[in-house]
């Protein structure tokens, strides 16, 4: 089990750094899809048949939504808004990669702080989840394009999903499904919002949204 988790961890880090350093939005959406499928597998690896159909349902739902559904929705939105690139993010791509390295250190440190209290959670997954949350937050803050902000939100969501899977073993199914439903509706609502913003402003660069102050 741990060897597999190490692999997931490594590939997860790779996808995060790819998201931090890529300007083409289409490529970012594909990395996001890869990440969704990758971390959707975690419940299956962690529980190894212990929770049977529940783990399968959870993994299946996540992979279907985050690996396939959301990326397709985002690709359609990208086509409609006719944006291909994050042109000039608020923080440059080189600095973003440097942030990634810093965040990696921070997540390892936080994990070692939290680990004694969460003794049953595998170290690498705890590390992954905190790193995903940090990278997701950073993408939301540092990118101009509304689609990239949604991607950041989904990276954050992935991190929280992993955290939930490894820390709280017996979460009721209803709660898990509710969380998944909220993520679904959330992305859907953001999609409609982007559609309206694009129609009204002729662009989905959020630095145009700056009339309200004070």
């Amino acid at each position, binding site marked *: 089990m741990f060897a597999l988790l190490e692999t997931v961890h490594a590939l997860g880090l790779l996808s995060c750094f790819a998201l931090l350093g890529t300007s083409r939005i289409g490529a970012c959406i594909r990395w996001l899809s890869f990440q969704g499928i990758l971390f959707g597998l975690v419940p299956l690896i962690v529980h190894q048949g212990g929770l049977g159909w529940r783990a399968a349902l959870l993994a299946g739902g996540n992979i279907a939504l985050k690996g396939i559904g959301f990326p397709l929705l985002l690709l359609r939105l990208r086509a409609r808004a006719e944006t291909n690139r994050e042109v000039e993010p608020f923080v440059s791509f080189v600095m973003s990669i440097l942030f990634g390295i810093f965040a990696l250190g921070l997540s390892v440190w936080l994990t070692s702080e939290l680990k004694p209290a969460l003794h049953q959670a595998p170290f690498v997954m705890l590390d992954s989840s905190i790193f995903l949350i940090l990278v997701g937050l950073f993408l939301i803050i540092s990118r101009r394009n509304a689609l990239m902000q949604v991607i950041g939100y989904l990276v954050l969501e992935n991190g929280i999903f992993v955290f939930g899977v490894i820390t709280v073993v017996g*979460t009721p199914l209803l709660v898990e499904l509710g969380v998944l439903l909220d993520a679904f509706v959330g992305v859907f609502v953001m999609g409609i919002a982007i559609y309206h913003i694009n129609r009204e402003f002729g662009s989905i660069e959020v630095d145009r949204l700056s009339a309200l102050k004070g």
Partner: protein
Amino acid sequence: MLAEQSILLMLAVAVAGAALCLSLPRPRQVLTTIVAVSAVEMAFAINIWAAVLAGPGSVTAAEQWFYIDAFSAFHIVVLVLVFLLSSAFAGVYFTSEAAHGFMISVARRFGALWLGSLAAMLLVLMSNNLGIMWVGMEATTLLSAFLISLYPTRLSLEAMWKYLIICSIGIAFAFMGTLLAAASIQSGGIVEADALLWTHLASPEAHLDPILMKFAFVFVLVGYGTKAGLAPIHSWLPDAHSQAPAPVSAMFSGFLLNTALYCVMRFVPPAQHALGPNFANGLLIVFGTLSILVAAGFIVFQRDAKRLLAYHSVEHMGIITLGYGLGPLGAFAALFHTLNHSVCKSLAFFAVGRLGQRFGSHEMHTISGALRADHLWGIALLVSLLALIGVAPFSIFMSEYQLLRAAAGTGAWLALALFLIASGVVFVSALRHLIDMAFGDPKAHEPPAREGKLAVPIVVLAVGLLLVLGLWMPLSLSQAIASAAAVLAG
């Protein structure tokens, strides 16, 4: 009727009403439906409240998934009261917009999202499971986002996007907090499936890991605090409140913020069991005082009436949070203040919304001489703003006075001093704005339009409540609030 069935019926009626609104053929019918649904919900809410207070202190339904004690019952009643007032006002407000595009498609969307938000907030207040509570809270964000941009203009879309992104991040943090709280119980030996149940987490027998609980409370406070509009994470609030249609602003300010704060407070008893009283209370005092100070600073420079009210919301959420941090006496004051603020702020948004329609803008310099130009809403504006800044004999003065006594009683002198200074600043600057708006020279405008039938009852009811509760607190209300405050003491 049994309280247990009332719980399920309340949710069902709200959801059914939302679905019904989607199929109605006329805007008028949508507006009538939301009032009728709110009135029915009021009957259920009072029934539940009475059952909780008369019985063993709590009502559960659906195998412990729903759990209502005095604390949540109080919040449910205030929620439904705000919804009843705001729904009635929505009729008054949107009827006069009928010419400007309150078409059936907009009306249907409004009705469905409005009652959908009500259902989501009820779910938050009724859930025993903290995970479901979170799901409900996230649902309120998603449902209410399109209420802000009911008319998609550039400004309302900007406000809505900020609201969506900032509150989604906040709510994500709250989920981390919820997970950490659930994880903290596992060393205890309670069955894992119950780890998210509030009744288990808050019971004194639960053994909670102090380190995890500390992290959990900080995450929850910051996460739900974003939604509750606590400084310094309030930045979405003035934009959303100022751009939304007036009834929506009233609902946001009057109760959505309280719902988020309610979620924070649910984590206080477990935090106190695990960490002693000082940790949670200290953080609440710091965030509360900071919100009051930041809001006071912004109130001085406001030019837009709705943004002014929005910053008043930050201030009053700060006051309520500060109250919760000051022990049992403070919690009593905070709960009483919740009721007063919800009624008062709704009335203020109604008045500003209606006057804004008359004067064609929410800029404070265009609204002048409101008292002479429009008697009803002019009086409503005057009363609600005077009450908001804490003038006696209105009830907000009483709850703030109780809060001062609580602060003095617990020796929180610094918070007390800062609160008084900020209140002074708010008083002076808001009074200046108010005098111009209420007593200035009325400019030439179209004559008063005919108000809806419900306009006068709304104003009379709200002003009456503020005045009566300021002069005399019924014993039964005082006992109800005391038992709600007792829930927080564990």
